[in-house]
Each structure stands twice: as structure tokens, then as C-alpha cells.
């Protein structure tokens, strides 16, 4: 048996996601961003909507999302992705427009843009990766950093008395009538990743049906920022992040759970 | 011909719209026009003024220090703008509410009882048109028919039924303007 006999479609057990480029991911090994990228690209590929999809990249770790996602993308200023997406969606109402944002981008500097795009019910998908820290800039406190969690700007742990409590953006926006779908997922196991993908797929379906904002939060790890091994960080996420940011649907088809 | 005019009074007296109608009338007879308002928080109740220029040449500055004509409708405006009339120029004012009458002797001064006449005509809102009529009697820089055309342009159609009343007010103003001499002021009431 030679190589050409082996390389046949029926023997294929795995392939690189078609809509991912060949660029090497710049994320730390063990980071959840790669999986979140993959799932998003798989959905767009499987739905056959790449020619009608426009992505908006944020500022933060995923600033270079457009290097990895082989689709048309524009890179927004820090926090402004929902405003950028608003305009694109308004001008191209039949396109699938999504933002891909981290917690600092979406829940701190871009809070106003997030809330108002959600409130206007823009027909967009928001993929919100929440790892409770600023990864790109070196592990500073995020709006979603847990109480007591040490970061480089809260070295003795986040003190909620002076630094405020971690903000639950998905619950917050779910209360706005413009948000049709709000859900929280994780991607650290196959099982979780499969569920997350289903949610992303539902989100893009909602865009097709012009239902307004679909808001998909992905609670993720940041092993570098948390100063842990990938496995330790996943476990820490399960033990600490999930109790505060419980996984599951918050609003489905316009109805709060 | 270039006529540089300031119209000044209280917000709500129709100062800005009088200027606008004058400007539109100018356009109707192919003049160059500019209309420069004072704007901002003083627009309601406070003082309002507008500089209107009509000219058969390209207008340079829309903002001026000295005017050919000042149309003055309250005391504050009298205090501020009497001195801005060019020597030999014209000051037209409504004596209603004026305690300090103009004192310059190097300009022509006229009075129009705009508020009183408008009230007698049963519509205080046409006050500004009475004053406009008085001005046009002194300085017929635009023809009455062009003012009517200007009114048509500047009023939205649902107010076009008011045009005959406005015309009447202008004619009333034309018939009731009177020159004012400084000696009159010296007489005891």
C-alpha cells in the first residue's frame, strides 16, 4: 500500500477547517481562541455563506483574527466592533455580519457600543470570548475578572469594593428587546465545543431570519495570563469561572429563560 | 445696490423670519442675499438678531459692524445697535416698550407702531410683517409682489392661506410709517 492509496476522501478522519488560513495561530498553546475561531469558520463554511459574510475583528488577543479566518474582515478600533458591524449590516442587510470580541473590548471600553447595538437590535452576531483578563497587553484586570483574582493591575486580587464586581454582559444585554438570542458556552472539551458550535450556528440562522442580535459568550481560559498550565487553567475555569458565569441559554427566540 | 440690514428684537417677535422673507424676496428679483442670525441659547425669550444683506454683487462679509439700516424692536437692541447705523443710514423702530428713544442726528429715524397695528388687525403674529411693510416703504429695495413670492417660498404650503393676511399687514405697515425727529423726544408727554 502506498501513500496515494491511503490519501483518499473515505480514509480521511480529520481535516483543517476549510475557512482557516495556513497562518500559524498566534495564540498561546492551550488558549480557547483557536477553537472558537474554528467553530465559527466551520459554521460559516457548512452554511455556505462565506460570500455573504463580513467579520469584524476587535482589539485584544484576537486583533489578528483576520490573519486566521479566511473571510472578508475589517479590524475595528478597541471596543467599536458593534458600531462598525451596525453600519455594515445596515448597508448590506442581506449579509451575515459578526463581531468577534474579548472581554476588555466588549465589556469595558466598548460597553456603550455593545449596549446600543444590542438595544437597536442590529441584525448581527456577537461572539464574545470571556477569559476574565487582558491577555494581549500582559494580564491586566478585565471587567470580567473574578472577585479576588490576581492580575497585574490587581496584584492582591480584585477587590470588588474598589474595583467593582465582575460584569455579566450576556445577562445584561439579554434584557434588551433587541437581543433575540443570548447564550453562554465553553470550548475546553469536545462536548462543550459541539454545543458552542450549535449555538453559533443558531446565531447565524437568526441573522438569516433577520431576528436582531445573537449574543454568544464563550467562557474561556487564559493560561498565560492566569499563570497556569493549560490543563490547570481549564480546571480553574471549571471550578471558578463557571459558577459565576453559568453555561447555558439565557434568552432563546426572544424569550428570557 | 447693496443694502446691509440688522433686524433685532426679542426671540419670538419674528425677527429671524422677517429676515428670511426679506432674503427670499431678494432672491425672487435675482439679488445676492445673505442671512446671518445670532444663534444659541438666546433664541427663545432673549434677544435675537439677524444680519440680512441684499446686493446685486457677490456678497463679501455676511457679518458686519455697520449697517445701512437697523430695524429695532426692543430696548436692548436699541442700546446695542443705534450706534451701528452708518452715518446717513436709517433706523426704523417700534416705540412700543422703548424708554430710551434714539438720539443720533446724523441718521434718518422712523417709527412704526407695529405691535399696536398688529393687535388692531387681530393677529399679533403679523407684527413682523407690519414692520417689514414700514421698512419697504422707506427703502423699496424689493417689490411687494416679490415679497409675496418670497412668502410662498419660505412658508410651507399648509400656511399659504395666511399669505393674504401677511400682505395686508405689509400694506398696513407701508401706510403707517412716520419719520421721527429728535425734537419730538424733547417734548414733555
Amino acid at each position: 500500500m502506498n501513500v496515494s492509496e491511503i490519501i483518499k476522501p473515505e480514509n480521511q478522519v480529520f481535516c483543517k477547517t476549510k475557512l482557516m488560513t495556513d497562518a500559524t495561530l498566534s495564540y498561546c498553546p492551550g488558549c480557547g481562541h483557536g477553537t472558537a475561531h474554528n467553530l465559527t469558520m466551520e459554521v460559516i463554511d457548512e452554511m455556505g455563506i462565506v460570500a455573504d459574510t463580513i467579520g469584524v475583528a476587535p482589539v485584544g488577543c484576537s486583533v489578528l483574527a483576520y490573519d486566521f479566518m479566511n473571510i472578508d474582515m475589517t479590524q475595528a478600533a478597541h471596543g467599536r466592533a458593534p458600531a462598525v458591524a451596525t453600519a455594515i449590516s445596515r448597508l448590506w442587510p442581506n449579509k451575515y455580519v459578526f463581531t468577534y470580541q474579548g472581554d476588555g473590548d466588549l465589556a469595558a471600553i466598548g460597553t456603550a457600543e455593545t449596549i446600543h447595538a444590542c438595544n437597536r437590535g442590529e441584525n448581527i452576531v456577537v461572539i464574545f470570548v470571556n477569559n476574565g483578563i487582558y491577555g494581549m497587553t500582559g494580564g491586566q484586570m478585565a471587567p470580567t475578572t473574578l472577585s479576588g483574582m490576581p492580575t497585574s493591575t490587581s496584584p492582591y486580587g480584585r477587590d470588588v469594593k474598589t474595583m467593582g464586581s465582575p460584569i455579566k454582559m450576556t445577562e445584561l444585554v439579554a434584557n434588551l428587546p433587541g437581543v433575540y438570542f443570548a447564550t453562554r458556552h465553553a470550548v475546553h472539551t469536545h462536548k462543550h465545543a459541539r454545543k458552542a458550535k450549535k449555538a453559533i450556528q443558531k446565531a447565524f440562522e437568526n441573522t438569516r431570519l433577520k431576528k436582531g442580535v445573537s449574543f454568544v459568550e464563550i467562557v474561556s481560559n487564559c493560561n498565560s495570563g492566569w499563570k497556569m498550565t493549560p490543563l490547570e487553567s481549564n480546571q480553574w475555569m471549571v471550578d471558578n469561572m463557571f459558577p459565576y458565569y453559568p453555561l447555558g441559554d439565557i434568552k432563546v427566540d426572544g424569550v428570557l429563560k | 445696490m447693496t443694502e446691509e440690514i440688522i433686524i433685532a428684537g426679542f426671540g419670538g417677535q419674528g425677527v429671524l423670519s422677517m429676515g428670511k422673507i426679506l432674503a427670499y424676496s431678494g432672491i425672487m428679483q435675482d439679488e445676492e442675499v445673505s442671512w446671518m442670525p445670532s444663534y444659541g441659547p438666546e433664541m427663545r425669550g432673549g434677544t435675537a438678531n439677524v444680519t440680512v444683506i441684499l446686493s446685486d454683487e457677490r456678497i463679501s462679509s455676511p457679518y458686519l459692524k455697520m449697517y445701512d439700516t437697523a430695524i429695532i424692536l426692543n430696548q436692548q437692541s436699541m442700546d446695542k445697535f443705534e450706534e451701528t447705523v452708518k452715518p446717513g443710514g436709517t433706523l426704523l423702530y417700534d416705540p412700543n416698550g422703548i424708554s430710551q428713544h434714539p438720539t443720533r442726528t446724523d441718521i434718518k429715524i422712523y417709527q412704526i407702531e407695529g405691535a399696536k397695528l398688529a393687535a388692531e388687525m387681530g393677529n399679533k403674529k403679523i407684527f413682523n410683517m407690519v414692520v417689514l411693510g414700514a421698512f419697504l416703504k422707506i427703502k423699496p429695495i424689493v417689490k411687494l409682489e416679490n415679497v409675496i413670492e418670497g412668502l410662498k417660498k419660505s412658508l410651507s404650503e399648509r400656511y399659504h392661506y395666511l399669505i393674504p393676511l401677511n400682505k395686508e399687514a405689509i400694506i398696513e405697515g407701508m401706510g403707517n410709517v412716520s419719520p421721527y425727529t429728535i425734537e419730538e423726544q424733547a417734548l414733555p408727554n
Partner: protein
Amino acid sequence: MSELKLMKGNEALAEAAIRAGVDAYFGYPITPQSEVIEHLMAERPEERTGMIVLQAESEIAAINMVYGAASTGKKVMTSSSSPGISLKLEGISYLAGAELPAVIVNVVRGGPGLGTIQPSQADYFQSVKGGGHGDYKLYVLAPASVQEMSDFVEDAFDIAFKYRAPVLILSDGLIGQMMEKVYLKDQQERISDEEVIKKYGGWAVTGKTDRKRNIITSLDLQSEKMEARVHRLLKKYAQMEKEDLRFEKISCDDAEYLFVAYGSSARIAQKAVELARKKGIKAGLLRPITLFPFPKQQLFELADQVKGILSVELNAGQMVEDVRLSVEHKVAVEHFGRTGGIIHTPEEVLEALEEKIIHNERIGDYKTRESSIL
């Protein structure tokens, strides 16, 4: 030239935007330019041409909506007044860096800070020297009449798409709030989505078809690539200087003294020229219509002809620096201007010419003299 109207500068600009087939306007209310969005909303542009008009939650959101729309090759604009433009500067820098066509309008009011709502030209530096971060410039058009408020909308988009660069229309409260005659152009059709894709498919993000994907970004983590980007921008600016400089000369042929003024100040200075000539003073006016590119060469040449130059601006002395740079000390250049929202009168401008230029014994003595405005 189709329809003659009496309009405010702000309204004429808004109406011109609809007629020029602009695809979208995003803005936030601020005096003295709110008539722009008010006129647009009242005119139901979505019904007239399909133009999208949206009141954003902030100036920041508005300029980023502009960024989004421009990313897709659409004709998009925003307007604001000074404090609002300060907020937009981040987005403007991104537009410049990402090489996107867009039109931004600043109806300037006095500052700094919340300042005043009255007219001013104190944003000259902000407009022509960058304003936002990084090595970029804006092509800056300075309308001096309601007609130009209307005409410059289309001109600005022509330049924005010629160079794939943001263009600023630098107006002020006087030009925005005054009414003049304006000839409005005929309605142009908006270009269709298919045409956008055809014309701008080489760069605009409209969905990846069988072509290579398009990316809009201003980020280059590799310094060499970033420098190449900056060089690309510099080339555009050099080309603008060569091909798209605009200015107007008024009574310059026999002028012994020269005013340099733009926008509302140019109107006032023009009247000062008239007053000066009545007094026997041979004054002229050079009006830069574009502030970048700046009429450097024209000033350099006029400097051989005139005895002195007065830069007339509604600010504490900003453009005067560019005038001095242009004339290379061949002739004395002084500044005159009121600030805080006060508008100088033509008489004041003429007096300043007489005092600061004609009868000034210390003319040209910039080093030992105190600030020219006090």
C-alpha cells in the same frame, strides 16, 4: 445646477449629501451643526434614495460606523462640531491608517474644552496637523459660502475615493448657520451593491467570493510593513499637493498688502479688502480653499510682490505658522484674530492691517515681541 434655494449652510450640506447619492450618514447632535442630521431625518432619505441615516449613541460610535460602512466601499459621512470631532479623532486616525474613503464635517465652535457654541476657526491645527495619532494628514476643504457647503460634499467624496483617504470639510458656526442662495445639484443615483463590488472589490469587504479575501486594517506589527504603509500615505499626500490644491485670489494683481484667510474669515477679509481699497490701500486676499494641501508656492511668489501679509483667523494664531513657513521670511507675516466665538468685523481686520503691517515699526520682529494676539 437645478434648484435655487435659500438655505442654511448646514442644511445645504445635508441636502447635497442626499443628492450626491451618499449611502449613509452617522452622527450625534451638537450645536452648531445639528441641522445636518435634523435635515437628513426630516427629508426621509431612506425613501428618497435609500440613504441610511442613523443617530448614533456617541460621536465615537458614529465615526466607527463610518469606518464600518467605508470598509465595504460605500459612500459614507459624518458631521460634528469641535468637541465631537475631538472624540472622533481616534476613528479618523484609523480611517487614515486603514486607507478608507470617508467624509467628515467639522462645523467649528470656540474652544478649548466645552468652549462656546459660537463660530471659531480654532481647530485649524487639529485639522491640518493630524489631530489624531500617527503620521497622517487629511485633505481639508474649507467652504466659505453656503454654495460651497453644498458643492464640497461631492468634491470631498471625489477626493476620498481618488485617494482612498478620509477628507475633512472644515466649516464653522457662521457658514453653518447663515443662509444664502444655493444652487442644488440634480439628484444622482446611489451606486448599486453590484457596482460597489465591481468597482471596489479589490479592497472592500463585501464577502469573500472566488477572489482573495479582503482585509481592512491599520495594524502592521512588523515595523517594515508599517513603514511601507506610512510611505504609501506620504505618496498620496504628495500627489494631493501636486494635483488637488485649491485656492482663490481676490484683488491680488496689484496688491501691496495681502490678507490670507479661509472660510468665514475669508468673507470678512474680502470686505476688509473693499474697505481698504476705498481708503487707497492696495490690499488683496489669498483664500486657501484647501488647507491641506496649502498654497505654499502661491504665497512664496506673492511674498515678492507685497510689503506685508496679515493672516486673518478666528483663533489665536494657527494658520499664520503655515503662512510664515511658506514665505520663508521674505516678507513679514502677522496674525489677527478674535477668539472665544467673537467674530472680527471687516473694520477691525482693516485696522489690524494698518496697525500690525502698514504702520508697525517692529514688523517681522517675532522673537522679542509678546504674543501677537494680546
